[in-house]
């Protein structure tokens, strides 16, 4: 299976990105690991059904587990070829553009252990303050520092690895760190398959 774009995350920003790309005539696959919580519980359900009706392939209940990268002389300027999911672990899903829309901690787009905050699917660069004691403010109503943590991107919204952007992996939504730019799905270019293969 090969798509123009594969979106990791079927939440608000993942669905919005899918919607935009579908309108641009792209073939889109959304990997939606669980429904998002919403005051109107019907809404997330209907939004995914609506995307499917418009021609997106929605993999409900599946979970992106990792990426397959093209071999490159430059370790930090890489092109993503395909993603593995729980159901497609033996036969990865290929695309030309990938969008990370995994959400923050509750949605498991970001995870943390006692020392660090990390992005579990691709292991991209994550902006956070070292020292877990600095993640929270004791004042409940003060802005909580951990809410600003997230993946680092370049000005086009491409995800950074070791400070350098991946060629075709973008991030949107709350997974992006507070001071970094999320991608604008209406401006993402389809890479020319022949020239950069």
């Amino acid at each position, binding site marked *: *299976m090969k798509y123009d774009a594969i979106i990791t995350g079927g939440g608000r920003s993942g669905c919005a990105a899918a919607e935009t790309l579908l309108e641009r005539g792209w073939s889109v696959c959304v990997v939606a*690991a*669980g*429904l*998002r*919580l919403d005051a109107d*519980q019907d809404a997330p*359900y209907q939004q995914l*059904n609506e995307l*499917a009706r418009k021609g997106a*392939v929605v*993999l*409900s*209940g*599946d*979970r992106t587990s990792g990426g397959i990268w093209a071999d490159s002389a430059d370790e930090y300027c890489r092109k993503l070829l395909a993603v593995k*999911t729980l*159901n*497609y*672990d*033996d*036969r990865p899903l290929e695309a030309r553009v990938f969008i990370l829309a995994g959400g923050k901690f*509750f*949605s*498991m787009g970001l995870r943390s252990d006692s020392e660090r905050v990390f992005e579990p699917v691709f292991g991209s660069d994550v902006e956070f303050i070292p020292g877990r004691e600095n993640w929270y403010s004791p004042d409940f109503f003060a802005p909580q520092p951990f809410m600003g943590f997230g993946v680092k991107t370049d000005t086009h919204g491409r995800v950074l690895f070791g400070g350098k952007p991946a060629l075709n992996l973008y991030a949107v939504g709350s997974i992006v760190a507070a001071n970094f730019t999320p991608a604008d799905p209406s401006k993402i270019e389809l890479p020319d398959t022949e020239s950069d293969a």
Partner: protein
Amino acid sequence: MPEKSSYVQNLEQCMKCNLCTFVCPMMEVNPFYPGPKKAGPDGERYRLMAPEFYDYALKYCLNCKRCEISCPSDVKVGDIIQRARLKYAGHNLRDYMLASTDLVGILASPFAPVLNPVLRSKTVKGAMHLLAGVDSRRTFPSYSSRKFTSWYRKNVRDGFIKGESAPTGKFVSFFHGCYVNYNYPRLGEDLLRLVNAAGYGVRLLEKERCCGVALISNSFGSQARRQAIVNLDSMRKAVGRGEDIITVSSTCTFTMRDEYSHVLDLENSDVRPHLMLLSKWLYGKIESGEVQLKFNPDFRLRVAYHTACHMQKLGWRNYTLELLKLIPGVELVELPQNCCGIAGTFGFKKENYRYSQTIGDKLFTDIRLARGPQELESDVPFVVCTECETCKWQIEMSTGIPVLNPVSILASALFSSRQ
């Protein structure tokens, strides 16, 4: 002997959002069912404290796995419920007869010509309703007088149907399942035609038992485990020969790929990647360019595809849809994903019949809508397509519209030089 799987229940991840309760088809129709959150992660805390907390209403779980699909925290809600039922729920003789698909199939097969009309007679249905607890409104699937395995031994040489195509030396193994063997051998024949046309021979597994799904859902854990071990041993030998193991039933596939390790605690990770539905196998061969199929240009069929619950959980319906789209004369619509309500042996039990039919109503309406009014029906035949045999019984009984496995549609659309 397979080792124990490393599967762990993760009930502590549940944050009580109740999304699973919201999507559970049983919750909509049955006030006696506590719902997946309460039956699964919540109830498990109590059961860990004392087994007396086991709630017998857990028998209403259809094991459709919609709870797991909806869970934002990746809690294996359905597995927790299945494991609890396996551990605590009891069963009776009726459950044993419904769950022992192999035994009943072997007993019924020689008497099929007599048994089929008897099982359809009002008197016998009434007696079974009263004495055995099998609902009289339910139609039993017919038994075939000749088993698929007998047909295979007589008509297949080196994996190819005799006189139809020449062996190529390439093979796949076929897990036929009880339905193909005892009820509908024609589906197995269709599979052979299709796989032979793709240039592969079909081998049967050295030993095959029922996948055990009915045993699991009726709480016969140790028997299910024994059968699973036989299947896994045979499949390991096939994998050792370099063969993929293909199947036609979504539920058998799901059970052997996921429930063996998640519910029966058997290690199957070595077999799992090689075990797949025909559509996934065939799509891969076509995509890589190894196989090209030629379809009959005059073939015409209107197909409404129903995603069976376990097919949705497997996430593979696109393989089937893409294959069906290859047939030039097929008009394909995808039905909204709703449960048909039968859930294997569940719908055969008289206490469950009404829940089963109420759950299925949405799907039956969608199917009738897809067909259109009968009087306006075109000359092109209309069928429902699904990989699940119990969905087939339920849809055929409740709507009167024929249901075909995609394998049968693909096989009958093949271009044959003898036509």
